């Protein structure tokens, strides 16, 4: 396309913007990053900060797994162990998984995918990152003062009346970070409603956008409830109120209702964006239109809506009425329907597709299998009778890690690899990416599959010691966790390396559809040179035609 001189002996790559003006080189200096209102730069700020939190949460998990190598509590005592799993949970849920895909990939891609120059409220977008950072900082102070050991769920009255750790600070950190999530959701909803390019109707939107729309609804309607709930816990501790104190007539179960009213939908905040990524990956690497577009789009909304009505399945054994339990159980089964719609439609998309096995697709295929296992074991737990046997065992731990790691993190890693050339303008080494994807898959399954077994056999969660007959399965799990830990480090190394020495990426290295692939890599500050006009539906791959060698023109005004 262009014939400019490039540095070194690299060839000019069509659609690569590294030697032209782009969002990275548009401004320089630390303040140009810390005060930026560019959605792409804010995405990078989030990427760096959540990656740090991911490795911090991983370090706590390493402590847990090391302790569980032996039946006796010989590495840490029970108090320290309680702190390890609590802080692992808090960091991973509130400071990594919830912001992960929306705040990094969503921030970067959502405006581009709908043909906008930025999110509707760029300053609020920056503010949301600062809320996140202040929340993290407050939580880190809580860690420095000795951490917290209530479990990430902060159940009362333990958290309000008995715990001697830093509950108030930890709760405050989560409270503040919650606003970051709310503001991101608010920005996305307004942007999707008001700023779509001409011709981009609702049913032409990429499914990534639909998934983020559904996620944002949960962020807006769920997060404030948990915010006010943990605020009540903090104030109750601070001022000795009696809101959840049974001695004063308070009801600890009320806390669980309020907590899970958010924290169950929060599971969908973590998985729905991953499902959005999945739809993009599956179509790009089968070079085929997605099967049942409308069903996938609407199933995201269905998950968001029904997801608000199932929280009581966390409370089958906590003294909730049996009849309430029956309703919650039935509604929980109902959520399986829209989830299954997605899994079946992705699988149907593979049928007669021109499937290729680049590393993002390996994560996507892994997602389908692991999410299915996680989802089906969720049905076991939604059945009231079975749940009495499996409640608070390692079966539950294994189940939600299949969703959170096998689902959300696989989609996150797949998405990061898929859009890395767009974000950075560099290609990563595909060989190492495939090695890492295989190792992540193997390490993950070795870590968590034995936990289904050991949990079904009766090993409870949240204890630092266990009967000797469970040791073999726990050693397997710890071995898997070691492998998984190493496998997570490999992408860190080669992705960082690729920033400096990776091959330059063209505008559309995968031959994928979508407005983001029509602009240069990395994009300019305002994404598009001309307002794009959309004339076709999403994923309009020509059937049977391999588009991977079609060179897309940089900054083409029309989705071609």
């Amino acid at each position, binding site marked *: 396309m262009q014939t400019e001189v490039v540095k070194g002996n690299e060839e000019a790559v069509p659609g690569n913007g590294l030697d032209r003006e782009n969002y990275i080189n548009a401004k320089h200096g630390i303040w140009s990053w810390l005060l930026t209102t560019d959605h792409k730069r804010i995405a990078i700020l989030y990427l760096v900060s959540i990656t740090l939190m991911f490795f911090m949460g991983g370090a706590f998990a390493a402590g847990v797994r090391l302790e569980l190598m032996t039946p006796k509590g010989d590495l840490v005592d029970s108090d320290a162990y309680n702190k390890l799993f609590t802080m692992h949970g808090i960091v991973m849920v509130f400071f990594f998984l919830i912001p992960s895909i929306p705040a990094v990939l969503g921030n970067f891609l959502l405006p581009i995918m709908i043909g906008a120059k930025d999110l509707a409220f760029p300053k609020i977008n920056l503010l949301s990152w600062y809320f996140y950072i202040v929340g993290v900082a407050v939580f880190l102070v809580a860690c420095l003062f000795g951490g917290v050991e209530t479990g990430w769920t902060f159940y009362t009255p333990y958290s309000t009346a008995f715990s001697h750790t830093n509950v108030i600070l930890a709760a405050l950190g989560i409270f503040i970070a919650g606003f970051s999530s709310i503001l991101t959701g608010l920005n996305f909803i*307004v942007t999707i409603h008001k700023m779509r390019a001409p011709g981009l109707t609702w049913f032409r939107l990429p499914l990534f956008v639909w998934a983020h729309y559904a996620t944002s609804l949960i962020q807006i309607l769920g997060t404030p409830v948990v915010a006010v709930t943990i605020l009540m816990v903090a104030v109750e501790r601070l001022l000795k*109120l009696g*809101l959840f104190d049974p001695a004063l007539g308070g009801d600890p179960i009320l806390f669980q209702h309020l907590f899970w009213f958010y924290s169950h939908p929060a599971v969908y905040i973590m998985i729905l964006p991953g499902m959005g990524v999945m739809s993009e990956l599956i179509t790009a690497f089968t070079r085929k239109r997605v099967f049942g577009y409308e069903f996938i789009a609407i199933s995201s909304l269905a998950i968001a809506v029904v997801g608000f009505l199932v929280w009581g399945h966390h409370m089958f054994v906590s003294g909730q009425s049996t009849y309430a339990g029956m309703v919650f159980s039935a509604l929980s089964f109902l959520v399986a329907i829209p989830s299954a719609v997605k899994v079946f439609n992705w699988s149907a998309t593979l049928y007669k597709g021109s499937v290729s096995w680049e590393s993002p697709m390996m994560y996507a295929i892994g997602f389908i299998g692991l999410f299915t296992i996680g989802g089906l074991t969720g049905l076991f737990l939604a059945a009231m009778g079975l749940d009495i046997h499996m409640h608070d065992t390692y079966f539950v731990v294994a189940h939600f890690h299949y969703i959170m790691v096998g689902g959300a993190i696989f989609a996150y890693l797949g998405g990061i690899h898929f859009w890395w050339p767009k974000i950075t303008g560099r290609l990563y080494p595909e060989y190492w990416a495939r090695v890492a994807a295989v190792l992540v898959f193997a390490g993950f399954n070795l870590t968590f599959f034995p936990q289904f077994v050991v949990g079904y056999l009766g090993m409870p969660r949240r204890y630092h010691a266990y009967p000797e007959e469970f040791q073999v399965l726990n050693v397997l799990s710890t071995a898997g966790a070691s492998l998984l830990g190493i496998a997570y480090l490999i992408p860190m190394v080669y992705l960082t390396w690729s920033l400096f020495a990776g091959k330059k990426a063209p505008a559309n290295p995968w031959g994928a559809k979508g407005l983001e692939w029509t602009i240069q890599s990395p994009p300019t500050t*305002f994404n598009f040179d001309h307002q794009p006009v959309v004339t076709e539906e999403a994923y309009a791959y020509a059937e049977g035609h391999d588009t991977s060698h079609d060179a897309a023109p940089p900054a083409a005004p029309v989705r071609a």
Partner: protein
Amino acid sequence: MSSSTHHPAYVHHFENLSEQKEAATFGMWVFIAQEVLFFGGLFAAYAIYRNLHPEAFYFGSHHLNIPLGAANTAVLIFSSLTMALAVHAAALGKRQQIVGWLLATVFLGSVFLGVKVVEYKEKFDHHLVPGASFQAGQLGMAEHIADPVLRGKAERASQIYFSLYFSMTGLHALHMIIGVPLILWIAARAWLGQFGPEYHSPVEIIGLYWHFVDIIWIFLFPLLYLIPKPH
């Protein structure tokens, strides 16, 4: 469209000024939606506990100052009127009127907060603030509930009533404490002539926010102050 992209308030990542205005208003509505859920947690707790402890709520509510609460309700409703007049003046582009009505709103909001301080002080003086110094004996249940077990239960639970009273009215007051400086800021911008018929979104969305805070109080006043005797 060409003229609306040359307005000084226009931010260029929007296609034109009207898209920008729609986005701002819609954004405030979405924000209000999350605010409803934020207060919703406390309203849910209120519903559960009033159902569990009707006596405690009844006796607790009778130690609130109904005349002051009623007067404050009138003040707040009146401030919503002045706010609506400010938005109206902005739509007509009458600079002095916008500033005047906004300052009137600030004044009424401050009166409300001042009265709230007086009410809170009464509760401190009467040892009705939950915590170590709380004295349920102040509530005068002894004359009305003969059974000492029931009376003890109601007296303990009355702390929950006052916890909710302070949480809900406190959170509401916090929203007003945030709102007042925001209105002053908007008033300053109005004084500088930044708003007119073509563009006055900030006045409109601060108005939405203020009305929302007002409506929360419309629910809080009867729920907290006007509890009838349980059967």
